[in-house]
């Protein structure tokens, strides 16, 4: 069978599977996100849940207004961030360190702690060479769960703000956090990990296995100085040295438990440096498919949850449809560009017959690489099964563009929905004026405060990405990390700050970002992109929850159906995307035209 057709079949399979899981997950979310909700796991987790509240001194019956909710979320995140920072700095004296790895450097520890707290999982380090088992399992995995739960909690708080009326409170942050972790993330991850193990993924506490190579290899590697950073010569280029390799370290450890939450919680931080391209981390086509599906699962289910909560299921499905449409468009563009490949390589006769295979796992091929890249950046996952840096310019444009839209296509768990709802509010505002009424979203008037909060969220996204990138491209520290010059180098820097701001965590790997400057600026970008976004969104929730609901009439337009679908897509593209077009033009777009003209970077 030809590979194109196989691609189409897998694509259809993926979308159908996504449709099928949306409603069940949405219905389950409805129970989890209701403090009184009952689930079949109650016998196991109810006592644990009650014990947790008792230990934390939380009264689960007392709900928060938006300011209390925001404060609880920020305080919790701050403590969690400091906790992980401490573990990373002290991993050499803490247990579960069979490799005897040393402490993580201050800037890398800051970067990593913020990275995992913000659900970004940007990794300036290679997991297997830097992190002890304790750091991985406790310091990082802890955040994989709670940062995902935080995102879902905030989405739920915003949805409550929309659904309730003439009220003050939007839920209890601690209850949301605990319930999502216990009833949603842990059980699914346990089951998912078992399935992954069945596919050949490892789960153990053994030290790394040393294997002797059948045939010694000569390799040229970047020289590393005593601080563990790449050495550079006087011109700032990395110093390379020849090494003969006779044995290989084969990574071991508690992988499956990590990978389940990495995907489900759209964390994306790889256990190994090669992430989902590493054979242990992604052993089979089925594990690949399930990992991709798990990335979208909660984001997709949340749209159903939205529909149920606001008692307008068609609205939920329309939001879902917008996400799917943008997702499909992205996949098609990336797939097409990768299949078309690199005209220069083809001209020289060095290209694979069926397109651009540079940086891709032969096991997955072009379609599954393009699909994975689109999914991981539609959501704020950041796991990769191929190297985005090696994509064709337009193929690489897709992940970059997806992140810059704000990762609203299913998005990070929770974050995707609340990001999308910002566009819904703006779209409703403009369209509401167009029909001659003070704009209403599901019966709630959208007034200046709400517009202010929504625009603030957009503004923060744009400022965070553009200002840091612009600073980096004209500063010494910014350019020092670049392995490629020209427009591709610009794309790499743009991608790094987009990925950080969007809490994605994937990289255009050509950039050596493990420097104090990049670790610090990216750490700040991640914090801003996460928490400064969340505050206006909770402010929006707090404003909406107080409003009365005006009953719908013939004078209000429906927030579902074809017209609303077009309106929402138009709003996203015109208000969300236009901001990044000039920078994108100088990066991937110019690169594309130059490649067509025979120039590479």
């Amino acid at each position, binding site marked *: 069978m030809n590979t194109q057709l196989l691609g189409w079949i897998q694509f259809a399979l993926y979308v159908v599977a996504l449709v099928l899981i949306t409603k069940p997950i949405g219905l389950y979310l409805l129970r989890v996100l209701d403090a009184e909700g009952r689930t079949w796991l109650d016998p196991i987790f109810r006592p644990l849940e009650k014990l947790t509240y008792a230990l934390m001194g939380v009264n689960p019956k007392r709900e928060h207004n938006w300011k209390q909710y925001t404060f609880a979320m920020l305080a919790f995140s701050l403590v969690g961030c400091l906790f992980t920072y401490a573990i990373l700095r002290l991993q050499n004296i803490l247990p579960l360190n069979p490799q005897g790895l040393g402490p993580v450097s201050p800037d890398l520890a800051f970067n990593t702690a913020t990275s995992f707290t913000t659900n970004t999982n940007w990794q300036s380090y290679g997991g297997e060479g830097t992190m002890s088992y304790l750091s991985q399992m406790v310091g990082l995995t802890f955040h994989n769960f709670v940062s995902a739960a935080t995102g879902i909690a905030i989405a739920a708080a915003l949805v409550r703000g929309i659904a309730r009326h003439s009220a003050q409170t939007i839920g209890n942050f601690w209850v949301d956090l605990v319930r999502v972790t216990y009833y949603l993330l842990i059980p699914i991850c346990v089951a998912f990990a078992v399935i992954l193990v069945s596919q050949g993924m490892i789960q153990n506490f053994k030290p790394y296995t040393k294997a002797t190579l059948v045939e010694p290899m000569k390799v040229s590697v970047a020289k590393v100085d005593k601080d563990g950073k790449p050495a550079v010569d006087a011109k700032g280029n990395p110093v390379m040295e020849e090494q003969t390799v006779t044995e290989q370290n084969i990574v071991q450890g508690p992988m499956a438990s990590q990978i389940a939450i990495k995907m489900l919680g759209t964390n994306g931080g790889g256990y190994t440096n090669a992430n989902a391209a590493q054979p242990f981390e992604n052993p089979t086509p089925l594990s690949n498919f399930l990992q991709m599906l798990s990335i979208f699962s909660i984001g997709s289910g949340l749209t159903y949850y939205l529909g149920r909560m606001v008692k307008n299921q068609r609205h939920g499905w329309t939001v879902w449809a917008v996400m799917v449409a943008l997702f499909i468009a992205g996949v098609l563009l990336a797939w097409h560009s990768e299949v078309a490949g690199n005209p220069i390589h083809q001209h020289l006769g060095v290209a694979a017959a069926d397109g651009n295979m540079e940086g891709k796992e032969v096991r997955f091929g072009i379609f599954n690489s393009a699909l994975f890249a689109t999914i991981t950046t539609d959501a704020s996952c950041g796991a990769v099964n191929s190297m985005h840096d090696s994509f064709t310019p337009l193929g690489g444009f897709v992940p970059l563009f997806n992140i810059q839209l704000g990762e609203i296509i299913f998005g990070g768990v929770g974050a995707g929905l609340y990001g999308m709802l910002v566009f819904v509010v703006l779209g409703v505002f403009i369209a509401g004026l167009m029909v001659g009424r003070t704009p209403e979203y599901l019966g709630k008037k959208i007034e*200046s405060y709400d517009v202010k909060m929504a625009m603030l969220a957009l503004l923060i996204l744009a400022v965070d990405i553009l200002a840091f990138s612009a600073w980096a491209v004209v500063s010494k520290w910014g350019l020092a990390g670049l392995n490629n010059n020209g427009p591709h180098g610009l794309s790499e820097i743009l991608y790094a700050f987009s990925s950080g701001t969007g809490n994605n965590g994937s990289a255009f790997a050509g950039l050596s970002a493990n420097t104090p400057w990049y670790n610090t600026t990216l750490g700040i970008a991640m914090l801003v992109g996460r928490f400064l976004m969340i505050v206006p969104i909770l402010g929006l929730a707090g404003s909406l929850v107080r409003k009365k609901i005006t009953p719908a009439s*013939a004078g209000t*337009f429906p927030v579902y159906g074809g017209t609303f679908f077009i309106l929402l897509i138009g709003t996203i593209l015109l208000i969300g995307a236009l901001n990044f077009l000039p920078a994108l033009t100088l990066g991937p777009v110019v690169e594309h035209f130059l490649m067509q003209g025979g120039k590479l970077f």
Partner: protein
Amino acid sequence: MKTKSRSLFDWEIVAPAIGDSFKKLDPRLMVKNPVMFVTMVGAALTTIGIFTAEPSLRGFVAQLAIWLWFTVLFANFAEAMAEGRGKAQAAALRRMRTTTMARRLHNGREDKVPATDLEKGDTVVCETGDTIPADGDVIEGIASVDEAAITGESAPVIRESGGDRSAVTGGTRVLSDRIVIQVTMEKGGGFLDRMIALVEGARRQKTPNEIALTILLAALTFIFLLVVVTLKPFGIYSATVFSIPVLVALLVCLIPTTIGGLLSAIGIAGMDRVLQRNVLAMSGRAVEAAGDVDVLLLDKTGTITLGNRMAIAFHPAPGVAENDLAAAAQLSSLADETPEGRSIVVLAKERFGLRAREMHELEATFVPFTAQTRMSGVDFHPNGSQALDRIRKGAAEAVRTFVETAGGAFPQAVQAEIEQISRRGATPLVVASNMATLGVIELKDVVKGGIKERFAQLRKMGIRTVMITGDNPLTAGAIAAESGVDDFMAEATPEDKLKRIRTEQAEGRLVAMTGDGTNDAPALAQADVGVAMNTGTQAAREAGNMVDLDSNPTKLIDIVEIGKQMLMTRGSLTTFSIANDVAKYFAILPAMLMATFPAIAPLNVMNLHSPTSAILSAVIFNALIIIALIPLALKGVAYKAIGALAILQRNLLIYGLGGIIVPFIGIKLIDLIITGLSLA
């Protein structure tokens, strides 16, 4: 104050508006509009850029600067045009408010003081020919007053002490009789002063939606400012120099100048349109709220029905010919000057060709209606005899007593007929001649022509109509069904009205109502949109947030449409403005990069002549589109009651899709023209 409808570009308004466009360049005024303020700063920077540019590019930068200034001036011109129409009216009003002298009553004596010296609580006398010096209430007497100065209506109106017609307005003239007026306004706070301030737009405050939109536009402006500023370092990295004028050109093209430039003009023009319908809105907020109204409370009498009952049928008693009943009914009504009475005469003539006769020819005397007898009719004295022949018509109970007293019987069939008529919502009037009951006249409230269609339109707009009436539920229900209102309140007291408004509001609805009486004042104040009739009391006029000078309650529907139009125009132009950015990107970005990356040429989809012509064309388009859209901003986007979804689809198509396509064509055309003229 009927204003002659001026053509859109009347020279008397255009000329001063051009001057005002320059006066409005004052930065203190400009800063209130962030979009245009940024544009002006850009224009200034570009002007400086003329001198620092390379000599070969000076012509280009100079043209850019000129067009950027034009962009700002065009926006100012739009606002000045909108204000100009109001100003012309204000000037006319000022001329009218001459230095009237007032005859003030002081301890029973009269002294003459200038009208401007009157204090609240003073009493003044006005007689035939006097101009009423201030707003007030008539506390003594009755007079006919010419209010043409305010309403434009030449027919005089009656103003009398007590009741619901006691309010008089300063500037109007007493035509006959003498009245004593108590001044109810503070110095300088009269109706006329407020009107002048309103039409001049002096007290214009931004409406809530306008504020929200301004925030959206300011935030977009800030984002695009950031986009353009960061483009400079990205350019440095890419070894491309972006000059300040070119970056300014990109910025001005991206920020929403079209809506930013027209926003205040739309608001002012909306108020002006309300005024042209002879309605004084106390604030833009009120007009905007009218567009949001969910429920309209309408008085039955005068709004839904013509206000008078009309005879529509004769129902004879058993054994009586309809003709005879009609003849008796006509006779009893010949001298009855009430509208009901006249309508009976008219019906008798229509149905049976019975002509009106003179009373004295019949040797009859008219017995007028009294509250005690609740009947009217005629007494005949054939040949001056004492043997009276008496015909009576009136309420069923009264006529029954009349017949039974005379020794007659009230037939069962007539009683049944009466009940049936009542059930239909009509009023039965029984006719009797001495002891014989002749039959029943059916009187009916006549619903105004076209009102049913009007309500159907409102329903499509998503507005529910509620009829308010003092009638019994039976009558009210019938009228409600016939007129097509969605709901009605029968036997409603002012308290009921107030309660109803509060309930609707508690359920999240916006309520509008009309009223005129003093007891309407609380409800008018409670309603989100309260339209007081100009004929009403001072209390009602103070309580409402609009005054209808024509006192035509149906006009509320017009105001709702204007309110909607105002929002639609803003929304549509915002969409248009943002959608325009796509084409401008395709014009300017390739032009900016062409020198460094010639390979990018395919992105120049419009095939514009050169980088300079491309940038110039985009800027010129951006400026001219403001001028081109001024008529739309002033007239407003057409409103049709076709339901929100249909309107949205229509406007998305015209202003969304149109907003994407139009600039591609426009910029290409401008490029052809300026290239042809060798301007770039």
